[in-house]
């Protein structure tokens, strides 16, 4: 890393004093340790280097693309079925496990196992919707929320029993590593994962916009009764939609297996991200999930830069609350899938 353009941009060892905090290098006065240490984050304002901001923005966008992919299936199910699918986080984790085992046993690269995990999860999602959720689909949203919450407990604890809580990682034989491009450090595997995540999301967009099944999904979202009168098999469309939501979760899980350690315990974190992204970007459109994902990634990264890594998510949630007051439909929010 030494001598990379980014580091040179703000000076080397000699110049460090200018970018570190005033307290650094001096022993702390007795008894002041905790306050001093926690306040230091506020003092860390490295010189105003455009390169630094560009790097942080890049980090945020790389993260944001993955966030969008986590959230898009959740958004679709919420938008079309009006079901808040608490299972979504566990679906993502399940996708990661499929990628993990496919990699360990068959040497399948996670970029390829998106088809496997997506396919398996589609079947799981379709069956869960057809067999269980469809029975209460007309009930108030709280009923389906509780139902998916219960299902999530079963799936999550099932994974704990089957896979244990030990953290696993997909370790590639030939990782792409990082490249310094124009002074920015670009982690290539992450970039590729993010690119695929966005590509999948765009593919979903065109599926909804162009394909027959996609138009049927949109029609059901707009008016289920009218769609039924036009000959659309509404329960089947519901199941297909839920299946697609799960498919996206599974595919996202495959991609995430390259980035995050895999454990059933991460399901909750992913669900939380999906929720925030949907509210931030606005329910009801694919573009909302993409915008929400990138927005969350960027906000979190700059939040961590400006007020310390401890508060990256705090900023994101504060903005979320503000947005709920000012524009409750989210950045891109509008009714229905189009």
């Amino acid at each position, binding site marked *: *890393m*030494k001598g990379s353009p*980014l*580091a040179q941009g*703000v000076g080397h*060892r000699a110049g*460090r004093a200018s*970018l*570190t*905090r005033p307290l*650094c*290098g001096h022993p*702390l006065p007795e008894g002041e*340790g*905790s306050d001093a*240490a*926690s306040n*230091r*984050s506020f003092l*860390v304002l*490295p010189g105003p280097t455009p390169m*630094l901001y560009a790097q*942080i923005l890049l*980090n*945020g966008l*790389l*993260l944001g693309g993955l966030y969008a992919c986590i959230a898009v299936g959740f958004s679709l199910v919420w938008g079309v079925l009006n079901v808040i699918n608490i299972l979504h986080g566990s679906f993502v984790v399940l996708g990661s496990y499929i990628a993990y085992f496919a990699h360990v046993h068959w040497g399948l690269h996670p970029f390829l196992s998106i088809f496997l995990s997506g396919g398996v999860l589609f079947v799981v999602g379709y069956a869960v919707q057809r067999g269980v959720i469809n029975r209460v689909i007309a009930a108030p949203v709280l009923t389906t929320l509780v139902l998916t919450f219960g299902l999530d*407990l079963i799936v999550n*604890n099932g994974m*704990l029993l089957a896979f*244990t*809580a*030990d*953290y*696993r*990682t997909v*370790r590639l034989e030939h990782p792409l590593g*990082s490249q*310094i491009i124009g002074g920015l*450090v670009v*982690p290539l*595997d992450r970039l590729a994962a993010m690119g695929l995540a966005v590509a999948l999301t765009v593919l979903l967009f065109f599926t909804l916009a162009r394909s027959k099944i996609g138009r049927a999904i949109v029609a059901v979202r707009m008016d289920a009764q009218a769609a039924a009168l036009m000959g659309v098999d509404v329960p089947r469309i519901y199941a297909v939609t839920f299946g697609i939501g799960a498919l996206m979760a599974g595919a996202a899980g495959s991609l995430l297996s390259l*980035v*995050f*350690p895999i*454990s059933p*315990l*991460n399901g909750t*974190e992913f669900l939380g*991200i999906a929720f925030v992204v949907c509210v931030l970007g606005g329910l009801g459109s694919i573009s909302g999930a993409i915008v929400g994902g990138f927005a969350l990634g960027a906000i*979190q*990264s*700059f939040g*961590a*830069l400006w007020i*310390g*890594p*401890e*508060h*990256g998510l705090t900023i994101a949630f504060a903005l979320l609350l503000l947005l709920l007051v000012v524009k409750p439909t989210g950045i891109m929010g509008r009714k229905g899938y189009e």
Partner: protein
Amino acid sequence: MTNARTAWVSVPVAVMALGLVSAAGPASAEDTIRVGAPLPLTGPLSPEGLKQQRGYDLWKDTVNAAGGITAGGVTYQVEIVYVDYESNTPRAVQTAERLIAEDGVNFLFSPFGSGAAKAASSVSERYGIPTIAATASSEAVYDQGYQFLFGTFTPNSTLTDPLTRIVTDSGEGVASVAIYARNDLFPLAIAREMEKSAEARGLEVVSFDEYAIGTLDHGSALTLLRLSQPDWVFATGYINDLILIRRQMSDLGIQPKVLTMIAGPAYREFIEAGGDLAENIASAAWWHPAVSYDGQDIFGTTANYVAAFQDKYDALPDYAEASASAAGVILQLAIEAADSIDPQAVRDALAAMQATTFYGEVEFGETGQIVSLEPPVFQIQDGEAKTVYPPAIQQTDMRYGGIK
């Protein structure tokens, strides 16, 4: 949910208890010593909770197989009453209280980690139940003037001091350190100790940052850290955090001369999950399977303990597992020394203890925290945690650089 999970745990416990009773013949409730163990068996801390359970179980099974513990002319079988508190600290405290007040346990093993152990210690103190904390190192746990709390981990500074001394004496020109800590009781406490150790040895602490529990991205923090070009990066957290941090360090091309992570590298799961990225990470822990003591406890030598553990679990024990077994061994020695299971008598025996165990020398200080251990410093080399300190058990020399 609680009931379902408790049932999962209590069924095997009940089965084991039945097994014991039948094996021991005409045993009754009166000649069973019951030890309460609130543990995070599910939730984010479950990997750690399960380790403790393995350590306790090995001790309990070994003791019972050998006939039990004899005190005051009565031979007792040991039963450990596990309750899962789902990684939820407030529930750990309730659980501890329930174990003592309703289940009537004779002794308590603390819940996992410094935070929960401290919170639960007020309960056992109130009831006067001797309590052994197997995974609590922060001095803040023991500074409440409690009489019934004993801990098997030395203070955090006993990890950071030798590590810092080795690095600064190496002649490798390590002059600056960046500290990155999970905002949680133990990870933050040991990070603060590291800061003190570093400053005492003349290292420049170029940054000290904290991250929140559950952080999924360290990109910004590491980008900043990268700017200050530290010779030494010292990151604290648990396995999940540390793997993520390690991967992102690699993504961003951060290659310090020395990389320390605590706590995680001592666990085989970390080494397996980290792969090449785990190589050359230097760390310290309270125990290592390479230590060698000739104990007066049921396991005897450290080698015997390691063999017994491998027999049962087909893996090398790590410090958390060994410390849990040590908690059992220490309790047993205290009961035998007191020749009674009276809580006050056992407490006094613990306070006066001067014993050698497979785990190390055992002697508790004024506060109840162990003072007699010399924690090993180790480094992951070729996929194994190898000791570099103390000299008596040194397996290899510390390597500098080589962080991918």
